[in-house]
């Protein structure tokens, strides 16, 4: 981003703010120290700002992009309006497109940016204001009304430049800590992990999309900090402590030193973890716990292998739908799956079908706004309602299954009918493929996610119709405790360690193991060493977690016996509140694997 300076002030004249410490929710581990880049979504207050000499080209490119974006939006509006209300009204947008492409306007903008080093926003606001006021002053009502058109176009351009962080988040010109009220899935997906050192948002909860993506990209993140954007400016130094959920704005020297030291300490632990990378995740008495990875994007597969993952336990496929106006093609699906299957080199890959829902809807067009999206048309319900789209994905998964050990998993199954409909569609797609003469793998394992209490209660009826079960603790927690995990006011109720959730996990594990089938746990819960040991003690033998968490979980497992885990589970399941459980398991971890706890 460009340096925003009020004209006349000196670049190195930084206000001496005193240090500010804020507490939020730690959602992605690690510590980041860097300069803040504040994305204010409340409108676009254009400051009169100049860019550094030499950055004019970048500004010009940003402007050209924004013009293109705005043009496309107008084209959309033109087409929809023409269709609905006729060409006469549609042509209003065509005229606005002309304004965007006006050669005089463009050359004025270019000259402000190139010769006067105006930021793109500043140039736009300057030039448009000039035209708008010229028109407004005009005596003819016709012209004065045109001022509104000019303002419309200006607004679109500024939205492209500032109001919608997507475009700019995609191309941060330098490393920064992204600070915002909230981030949409599309925005986080557009992040460049090399540039985004840390993330800090006012809103959000532990299971929200920002959390998941941040973890997927291994960017330290703290969410749910509450209102603080007024206390921070772009350029301020910030420390994001993704272990303790702490944000420190303008740290004093001592604090900065402290964090630098801890960073070095953590790096040395990382080296220790590196040493056990190729060793299996076995308890000291030889019980093997499979550690699979949750992946969000195809390019994560290699880092999973590098971290010693036993496979991919949850391949989320939503990224294919985010940030795109069009549904992905079968080939796009297939390529995304094939890359992961190949990179995992014969390790199992569990592909979850579309799980788009309230918190993951960026700008996709599949669903209408709902009053209660979490209880609405999401996930498998959405897929079953749109079989044409669902079939495309299933076809691609079945094709990719020829390349390795691919398993398919249906999310958010609530009723047996849903499971049967999904399986029916799967069978029909595979018959189609066979009749087209496509080579397909017939014995693809089919699993369901257990995320809804109803599925746990009825699991004895489901179990004969599936090959495996994966417990999604994020949604299971949300649906069991009736807590919207992204709602700040109730986020503290959202505790995966709540005894009610533990009982559901326990019941699931019992029903599945009676049938000699496997249960994995793929929620955020598995990323926490204390809970990983608790789950192992409850009989879970497969955990699916963020790739970055694999080494530390492996370390924890290798440090204990299964008996210790079982004793821990036995006692934990007899506690009555989430707080008791949490305190108990953290305490146990400190006793069993002190070196991990020291790390935080």
């Amino acid at each position, binding site marked *: 981003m460009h340096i925003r300076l009020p004209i006349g002030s000196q670049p190195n004249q930084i206000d001496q703010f005193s240090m500010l410490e804020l507490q939020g929710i730690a959602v992605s581990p690690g510590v980041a120290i860097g300069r803040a880049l504040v994305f204010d979504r409340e409108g676009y207050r254009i400051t009169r700002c100049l860019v550094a000499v030499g950055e004019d080209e970048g500004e010009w490119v940003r402007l050209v992009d924004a013009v293109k974006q705005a043009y496309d939006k107008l084209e959309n509006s033109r087409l929809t309006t023409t269709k609905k209300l006729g060409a006469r009204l549609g042509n209003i947008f065509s005229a606005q497109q*002309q304004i965007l492409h006006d*050669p005089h306007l463009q050359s004025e903008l270019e000259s402000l940016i190139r010769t006067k080093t105006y930021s793109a926003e500043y140039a736009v606001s300057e030039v448009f204001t000039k035209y708008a006021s010229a028109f407004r002053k005009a005596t003819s009502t016709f012209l004065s009304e045109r001022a509104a058109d000019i303002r419309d176009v200006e607004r679109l351009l500024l939205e492209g430049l500032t109001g919608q962080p997507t475009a700019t988040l995609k191309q941060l010109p330098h490393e920064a800590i992204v600070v915002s009220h909230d981030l949409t899935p599309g925005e986080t997906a557009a992040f460049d992990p090399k540039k985004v050192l840390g993330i800090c948002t006012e809103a959000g909860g532990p299971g929200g999309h920002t959390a998941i993506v941040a973890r997927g990209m291994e960017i330290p993140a703290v969410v749910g900090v509450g209102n603080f954007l007024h206390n921070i400016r772009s350029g301020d130094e910030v420390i994001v402590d993704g272990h303790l959920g702490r944000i420190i704005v303008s740290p004093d020297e001592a604090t900065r030193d402290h964090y630098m030291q801890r960073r070095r300490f953590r790096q040395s632990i990382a080296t220790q973890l590196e040493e056990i990378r190729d060793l299996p995740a076995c308890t000291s008495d030889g019980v093997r716990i499979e550690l699979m990875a949750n992946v969000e994007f195809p390019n994560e597969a290699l880092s999973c292998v590098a971290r010693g993952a036993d496979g991919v336990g949850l391949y989320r496929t939503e990224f294919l739908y985010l940030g795109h106006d069009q549904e992905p093609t079968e080939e796009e699906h297939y390529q995304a799956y094939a890359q992961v299957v190949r990179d995992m080199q014969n390790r199992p890959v569990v592909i979850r079908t579309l799980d788009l829902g309230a918190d993951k809807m960026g700008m996709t067009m599949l669903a209408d706004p709902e009053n209660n999206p979490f209880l609405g048309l999401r996930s498998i319900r959405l897929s079953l309602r749109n079989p044409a789209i669902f079939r495309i994905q299933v076809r691609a998964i079945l094709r990719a299954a020829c390349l390795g050990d691919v398993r398919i998993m249906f999310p958010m199954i609530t009723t047996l009918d849903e499971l049967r409909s999904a399986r029916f569609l799967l069978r029909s797609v595979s018959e189609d493929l066979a009749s087209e003469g496509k080579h397909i793998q017939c014995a693809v394992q089919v699993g369901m996610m257990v995320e809804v209490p109803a599925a746990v209660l009825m699991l004895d009826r489901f179990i004969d119709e599936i090959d495996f079960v994966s417990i999604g603790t994020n949604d299971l927690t949300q649906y069991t405790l009736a807590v919207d995990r992204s709602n700040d006011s109730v986020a503290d109720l959202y505790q995966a360690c709540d005894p009610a959730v533990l009982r559901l996990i326990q019941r699931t594990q019992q029903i599945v193991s009676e049938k000699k089938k496997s249960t994995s746990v793929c929620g955020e819960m598995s990323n926490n060493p204390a809970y990983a040991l608790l789950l192992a003690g409850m009989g879970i033998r497969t955990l699916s977690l963020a790739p970055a968490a694999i080494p530390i979980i492996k370390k924890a497992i290798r440090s204990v016996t299964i008996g210790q885990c079982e004793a821990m589970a036995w006692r934990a399941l007899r506690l009555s509140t989430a707080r008791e459980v949490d305190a108990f398991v953290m305490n146990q971890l400190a006793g069993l694997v002190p070196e991990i706890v020291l790390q935080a």
Partner: protein
Amino acid sequence: MRPADKLVRVAAGFQCQIELERAGQIADCRSILSLLTLGATQGSELVLRAQGPDADEAIRVIRLMFDQQFDEVNVEQST
């Protein structure tokens, strides 16, 4: 707005420089903002000027557009 929009589209199809003049103020026909700034309304007196290789053709087409009051002129066909 609509006539100005059409005029710009048509003008962009020619190589020549096309100008409209109203009461001493000159507008570039490729720039919608510059055309709008003329503040021309129905009944305004305008001078059309074109300079370049296809100037004659440009004058002919644009004149036709004005004559037909910018209605239903199929721009593609005319140019």
